[in-house]
């Protein structure tokens, strides 16, 4: 395949900060890589690690989690919870043989459209360098041991 690998990335954004930052980037016509599909949550604290696992298991190559800066979460300290989940989740991913770098947490306030677009662009390149994850294809195998084996002769 000579074409450049285009990663599929799911981005979870917080309604009060990063989603607005993305919106701001849009209205200001800042350009960012089209690889990220943004999903809006009310707060990074709503991010159930199940969402991240499901994204990766069903075809995403990377997941970007974004939220308000520490101390600025609209639900007081939910972004610290998100941080703790994220750090533990990375360890679980590692145990599954998935590069923890495929998931990234970024803080971005509603005013930081430029910061967010830069982070998105950097992340897309990082995932491009890691290559496809393709977990959905791995799971779709037919489940049989595939290697053809030679028939062994046993002396009488």
């Amino acid at each position, binding site marked *: 395949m000579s074409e450049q690998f285009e990663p599929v990335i799911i981005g979870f954004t917080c309604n009060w900060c990063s989603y607005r930052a993305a919106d701001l980037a849009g209205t200001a016509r800042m350009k960012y890589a089209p690889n990220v599909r943004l999903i809006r949550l009310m707060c990074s604290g709503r991010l159930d690690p199940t969402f991240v696992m499901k994204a990766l298991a069903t075809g995403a190559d990377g997941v970007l989690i974004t939220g308000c800066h520490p101390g600025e979460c609209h639900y007081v300290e939910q972004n610290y919870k998100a941080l703790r989940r994220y*750090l533990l989740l990375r360890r*679980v991913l590692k145990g599954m043989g998935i590069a923890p770098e495929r998931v990234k947490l970024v803080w971005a306030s509603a005013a930081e459209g430029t910061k967010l677009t830069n982070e998105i662009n950097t992340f897309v390149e990082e995932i491009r360098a890691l290559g496809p994850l393709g977990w959905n294809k*791995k799971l779709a195998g037919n489940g049989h041991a*595939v290697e053809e*084996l030679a028939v062994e002769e*046993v002396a009488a």
Partner: protein
Amino acid sequence: MSKPKFAMYWSGSCGGCEIAVINIHEKILDVDANFDIAFWPVAMDAKVKDVEALEDGAILLTLWNGSIRNEENEHMAHLLRKKSKILVAFGSCATEGCIPGLANLAPLHEIFDVAFHTISTDNPQGIHPQPVTKVPEGEISIPLMKDRVYTLAQVVDVDYYMPGCPPESHQIAAVIDLVIQVLQGKAELPPKGSVIGAGGSTVCEECPRKRGVKTIKAFHRIQEVAPVDPDICLLEQGVPCNGPATRSGCDARCPNVGAQCIGCYGPAEGVIDYGARLVTAFASVIDATEPEEIERILDGIPDPTGQFYRFNLADSLFRASASSFKKNGQSPAKASGA
């Protein structure tokens, strides 16, 4: 009137579930009184061809204990599915892969190497099992391993799920009672796909230990906590307890006797990924906001995969680790001692 037929079969498992069925004591006589035991290799002699000779749907109830590890397991699952009206995934191995499912953390050739060619195995001739072997009388074969461990429902349609490693005897007895009542027209079967012989909530709900909002600064192995407070939640004492994500049904057996729940009843109702739910639960008791401190606290869980997926790996969203997906034959030439 002839009695309805009952079967129990085991595949990739430890046999503990069969023991658990025997452990219902005199209730086992009710099974015998109400059923004609058509096939139960652990308990009586019967041949696969006897099962093959039955009409489709001839067995009323089959309890299937075990994961799907090889092609014979899979073949038998299809056969018993066809011959049974009600197929129950019985125990953690059948419902979620259980301990056999942890093999999904390694590629097949590594599993064979460990089993046949490491220091703990006395194998001077370097024997390595081959799917097909020629002997003077002809060819003999053994079933091919599947690439990874599967749950029963991942290969055939399952009617009911009965969790537990093994299911608690009183729960088995209750399920047998229910089926007998259904036979006598006194009760109805639950909707297809139901989890039976367990609760709808979490182990925490059944656990008598007190929970505050206490948060922790470190995780400890239980033997390092001295003394363990007998009345307070273990997780709040820094002991990794899987109760918050685990299905109720065992009466919180382990925390009741001072040990943490390791999750043998599988995911609680509504939990999509057991490990993900525990990531959430454990993250919320950690009392830290700085990444470095959080990482230091997390170091107290040295094997998160084992902690979070001891029983559920084969049924988790990922199913297996990346390495086990590599294409692996049963018998790589270099390992066969040739």
